[in-house]
């Protein structure tokens, strides 16, 4: 079934304004589905709660900068070695963004539970010695281990309404190849009711069938496929191009106050279509492309 849609239509059709729980794929400055996120901002879709991978980055920050996020469930939002995410930090410090404090293991296991219809996930001993369960009673609790009688930590299942994900390539049916690290993107796809996928390129199904073991997102989980070459910029697209530390640093300096952040959003997102944006970054993107020798690692060909 052809699931290929233009960017604007994918967002229009599948992301209701005020969506309950939306999750964004990628981790740190890699594989952030920025084209989808920019379109969410252009269409001004408010999000009740945003869930990041264990390490959110520009994917979370830009939605926060646009003022679209009411609550965020995360274990990290930042730009790793480059610095802190200014709007994430400022909106929490000023009390305008509510945090559901999580840790990496809970997000990972919680998505497993959400994907598998598990009522909750029992967690290893240890988290109770941190302050995290104390400040997030919605996601962390305790119950009795019936095999030992002990009280143990448990986490709530994570079942996003919508996942925005990036993959290197897909066919029109949504069978998709993640070319590098999978992070928790596959579990987001398995756990979410609706999955929107942006890809560097759409290829024929025959191309996909050549490397079935590298194609780890089945089309039946995907609701829309959008072709957005360069769509992860300024984050990296594994297999295609590196992240742009200069652009991130520029963003950080512009967004150091609310007005700056609004200006950045207006200039680079709202006042430009995605195509126009791609044109402005085209030259820089060419510099960031991985060398010719670097092939997407998942694309093995099966002979015979």
């Amino acid at each position, binding site marked *: 079934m052809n699931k290929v849609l233009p960017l604007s239509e994918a967002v229009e059709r599948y992301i209701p304004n005020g969506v309950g729980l939306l999750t964004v794929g990628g981790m740190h400055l890699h594989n952030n589905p920025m084209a989808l996120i920019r379109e969410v901002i252009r269409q001004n879709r408010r999000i009740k709660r945003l869930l990041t991978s264990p*390490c959110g980055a520009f994917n979370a920050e830009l939605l926060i900068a646009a003022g679209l996020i009411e609550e965020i469930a995360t*274990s990290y939002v930042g730009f790793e070695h480059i610095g802190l995410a200014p709007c994430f930090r400022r909106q929490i410090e000023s009390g305008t963004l509510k945090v559901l404090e999580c840790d990496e293991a809970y997000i990972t296991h919680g998505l497993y539970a959400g994907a598998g219809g598990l009522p909750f996930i029992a967690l290893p001993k240890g988290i109770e010695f*941190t302050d995290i369960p104390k400040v997030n009673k919605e996601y962390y609790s305790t119950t009795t281990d019936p095999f030992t009688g002990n009280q143990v930590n448990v986490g709530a299942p994570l079942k996003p309404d919508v996942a925005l994900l990036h993959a290197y390539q897909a066919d029109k049916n949504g069978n998709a190849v993640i070319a590098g690290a999978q992070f928790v993107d596959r579990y987001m796809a398995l756990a979410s009711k609706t999955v929107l996928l942006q890809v560097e390129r759409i290829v024929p199904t025959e191309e996909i069938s050549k490397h079935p073991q590298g194609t780890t997102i089945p089309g039946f989980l995907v609701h829309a496929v959008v072709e957005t070459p360069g769509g992860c910029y300024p984050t990296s697209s594994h297999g295609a191009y590196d992240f742009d530390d200069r652009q991130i640093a520029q963003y950080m300096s512009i967004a150091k106050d609310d007005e700056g952040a609004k200006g950045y959003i207006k200039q680079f997102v709202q006042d430009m279509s995605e195509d126009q944006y791609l044109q402005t970054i085209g030259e820089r993107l060419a510099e960031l492309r991985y060398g010719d020798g670097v092939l997407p690692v998942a694309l093995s060909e099966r002979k015979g």
Partner: protein
Amino acid sequence: MTVSSNDQLAPWSLSELMAVELAKRLRNDDVSIMGTASTIPQVACRLAQLTHAPDLYSIAGGTCSVNPNLGPVVASCGDYDLLRADTSLSLNDVVLLEGRADVLTVFFAGGLQIDAFGNCNLVSVGDWNHPAMRGPGTVGLPFLSRVGRILIYTQSHNTRTFVERVDFMSGPGFLRGPADWKAADLPGGGPQLVVTPLCTMGFDPETLRMRLETVHPGVEVDQVRAATGFDLVIPKLVPTTPEPTSEQLSIIRALDTNGLLKGK
């Protein structure tokens, strides 16, 4: 910050010195894992593999690849280049292994705040509900309670980072001290080392409080004391951290062709 000279390879940087100090604590049978912004531990692991610990396993916490080749060292733990490695795990695999507690022996940790008992905080300074400073978040630090040995590194040694008690416990060290630590009966072995731009520190085996071990070349003990926001245990004799050898430096420079550690 370049502080000293050694030979034709020098001057060495503090980041390079820190990498060397971390490398020394790695054993040939360790399985180590690093998280966010881990250029220094990356280099430490690769240096150890190329010198005294060829069988050391090193996991990049972002890509979850095992023994990345690091040619050159990269700035992000999720970098595509880290996938040039021996083995690939998924993030779920790595989180599982963290929970298992008998496989991973070394975790490289850090914090916005690090307290006298080696507890770390990456979440918030001040009251969590109204933070004076919001940090990025804890990522995998709660796993500290389950790992064999915690090696802490930080680029900032000052009284804001080193505090008597973390405002928010996001990575358990020795908790509130010996009684608390014993009662908790955690599978992990607790923090073993703290490396900063000023010194290396360990923990007093009785009180489990942080104890100065060595001061880096050119650093005075009083300078460390003043930069530390709690009563640091200070032995009578505090040796100077050895400078990186030229062999160590030449290995590091061959890995770090982009000079990520060199200037800092």
